[in-house]
């Protein structure tokens, strides 16, 4: 659990200066909580949207939408987060609104990409077998395609989560209370210690989020090891089975 150890170390770096005239630890923890909440508020809808879009464009009926979805996701990520936040302020006002929008745009791409790649990597014969045995298309997706695609989708979710935690700091510019707040304060007052605290705390939160998701995934893999371990091994045997 490398990520969790790193997170603990960085948290120490972020909190310690608080007792020597830096940003007070109590307030920093409060900001961390609201930072985490903000990141989740952005990444959860992004993940759901990315997953739904990924499933949609890999269905026979949605294949035509594939180029449009790709372009949309790429465009969403090409806009720097600062710009996204700044552009959204006039529409949403200051605070959480513009930040969540930026996080949403940012989170869709990795999840969409991973979902599409994972569903396309499902062995075609498994999909064909599902239909041939009498699954409905929805049943085949739920019972065969998604379980086989899950490990790769999870990777995309992890990337989106870490990105969201790191990006949420930008929300401070729009007046949202996040771990970006001490950074902005530090920059305004030429106080490097505050910048260091904010940066270290953000990184600590990002590592912690990654560690927690990995732990969850590890738990999931322990219960359903079959889904992550077997596509590779069945590929291997299928190849060795060819005459």
């Amino acid at each position, binding site marked *: 659990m490398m990520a969790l150890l790193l997170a603990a170390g960085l948290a120490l770096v972020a909190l310690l200066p608080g007792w020597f005239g830096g940003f007070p630890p109590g307030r920093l923890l409060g900001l961390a909580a609201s930072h985490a909440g903000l990141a989740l508020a952005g990444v959860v809808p992004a993940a759901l949207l990315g997953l739904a879009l990924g499933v949609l464009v890999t269905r026979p009926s949605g294949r035509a939408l594939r180029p449009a979805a790709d372009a949309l996701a790429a465009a969403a990520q090409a806009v720097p987060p600062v710009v996204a936040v700044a552009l959204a302020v006039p529409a949403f006002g200051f605070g959480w609104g513009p930040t969540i929008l930026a996080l949403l745009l940012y989170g869709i791409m990795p999840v969409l990409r991973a979902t599409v790649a994972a569903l396309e990597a499902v062995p075609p*014969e498994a999909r064909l077998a599902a239909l*041939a045995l009498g699954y409905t298309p929805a049943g085949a997706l739920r019972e065969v395609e998604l379980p086989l695609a899950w490990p790769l989708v999870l990777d995309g979710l992890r990337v989106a989560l870490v990105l969201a935690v790191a990006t949420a700091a930008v929300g401070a510019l729009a007046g949202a209370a996040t771990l970006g707040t001490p950074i902005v304060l530090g920059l305004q007052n030429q106080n490097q210690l505050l910048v260091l605290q904010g940066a270290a705390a953000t990184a600590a939160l990002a590592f912690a989020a990654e560690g927690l998701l990995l732990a969850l995934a590890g738990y999931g893999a322990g219960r359903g090891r*079959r*889904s992550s371990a077997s596509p590779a091994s069945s590929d291997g*045997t299928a190849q060795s089975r060819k*005459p």
Partner: protein
Amino acid sequence: MIAFENVSVSFDATEALSCVNLQVAEGVLCALVGPSGSGKSTLMKLVNRLVEPSAGRVLVRGADVAGQDPARLRRSIGYVMQSTGLFPHRTVAANIGTVPRLLGWDSSRIATRVADLLELVQLDPDLAQRLPGALSGGQAQRVGLARALAADPDILLMDEPFGAVDPITRRDLRAELRRIHAGTGKTILLVTHDPEEALELASQVVVLRDGAVVADGAPAALVAEDAPEFARTLLGGGQPGLRRLSLLPAEVARDACPAPADAPALPEGATLADALSRMAETGRDVLALGKGSLRLEAVLARGR
């Protein structure tokens, strides 16, 4: 039981099947043979609507499949894929129980059925909890066969079911299929590249070439001298005369009058090819067969 009426199938530019007419009666094991790309798999997939005809109709159990719900139709027809198509994330037992689960059987009934099927295809019950990735090729094909048989469908589609296994396992699986067919009277469509397999297992053999049926008949008829040349070459293995003799039981040429006392004996169930071989190795032109006898001229007369 299964009928194709003027069926054509086109994929984009290519015409995979053109105007196919074919009937397979109930309880028949029908082998589909033909070169790669001749349309065997396509013909088979028409039966459970994995492929739709672009013209003509396909009747299953007397009803046009076009009007039937694909999922329900497919649950009622067993399908064995060439590449086994086992679900890599599901155990052997869960793979075998797929269709019963879809049909809403309760779990104890499924468990009993899975145990019975493992026995039927002669798989060790200990394999039930394994994942397909940990099976040998022959074991995986047996699981595929068991999965297709799970809900006891009256129709079985088998697309090169024993393609990727060694000759010995192949012979075992073939014997098992023959046993299952004899025991259950299912209607079976079997795609195979092995002429011997087709001739030995099937009571009806259909030869496809470039999307058209070029021959359709009993195995012995398709290697006879008056059979279409393409079928004879494909199925005859260079010695269609011997192939034909190997398909006919020695009884058909038996003479009622007893053989000389010193004539070599032919065992019950031997074929005319066995008789010819026995004559060749003993240098005699008459054999004892049960209470009667078998003469060389009679064997040769059946060869044509």
